[in-house]
């Protein structure tokens, strides 16, 4: 097992910034990125989307965001349907896009799953790493949290 470098974590912070900049012309700001501390859990908001990672890597990428942020994003996308289904779909698609974009750096051997979504937190613990990378994101007035729990498997 080997760790991700600071440059590789930046791949994810750049992907978050690019996503919002591209779709809304207003980039998301990264408020902080840190290694999870023992006994602490990253913030969880109304909706979470998770991508499982396999191949030469193992773990997951999880984005958790508040309902108001996802609704605002749908407005920016001219999407009038703000049903529960579409809110969950959007947070899953966002997680999928961030993980997919990371393959520009990690290559095709970082295999990614289809998104799974949850209202709030995912049940149970799935941590691949002892201490996960936590990236706090701000877009407009909303805070969201991206948790990168990936390590190389060879």
């Amino acid at each position, binding site marked *: 097992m080997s760790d991700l470098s600071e440059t590789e974590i930046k791949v994810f912070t750049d992907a978050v910034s*690019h996503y919002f900049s*591209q779709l809304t012309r207003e980039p998301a700001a990264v408020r902080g990125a840190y290694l999870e501390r023992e006994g602490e859990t990253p913030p969880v908001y109304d909706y979470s989307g998770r991508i499982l990672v396999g191949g030469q890597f193992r773990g997951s990428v999880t984005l958790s965001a508040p309902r108001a942020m996802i609704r605002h994003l749908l407005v920016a*996308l001219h999407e009038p349907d703000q049903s529960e289904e579409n809110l969950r779909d959007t947070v899953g698609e966002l997680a999928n*896009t961030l993980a*997919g*974009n*990371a393959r520009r750096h990690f290559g095709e051997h970082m295999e*990614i*799953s*289809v998104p799974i979504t949850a209202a709030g937190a995912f049940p149970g613990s799935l941590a691949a790493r002892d201490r996960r990378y936590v990236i706090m994101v701000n877009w407009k007035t909303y805070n969201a949290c991206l948790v990168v729990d990936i390590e190389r498997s060879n």
Partner: protein
Amino acid sequence: MKLLIVDDSNVIRQRIARIASDARLPPMHIVGQARNGVEAVQMVRQHDPDLVTLDLTMPELGGEECTEQMIALKPALTILVVSALSDKATALRALKKGAQGFLYKPFTDDQLVAALQEVMLP
């Protein structure tokens, strides 16, 4: 022009459907929206589309195998891959399997219009 939209995200399918009505594009008739590769292949068989927008990461049957099966059914089918998978190898493989274009997510309305115009060039 008969269009089939294939993506496991409902929001993305709706967004592509809206952008496909853009005045800069030839008139398009959306013949179906599929949530996975299996549905997509069935819809190609049923509706004989001219153009498909195709996600790659989907449940049941992924986009690469789906491309092969759709091309086997209709060799003249035009396929625009719309995917977040941003490594070069994936894009090259999709093109080799028969797709005509590749658009990375996240995409703007203008980028999708331009990509559709490009793959529809005679």
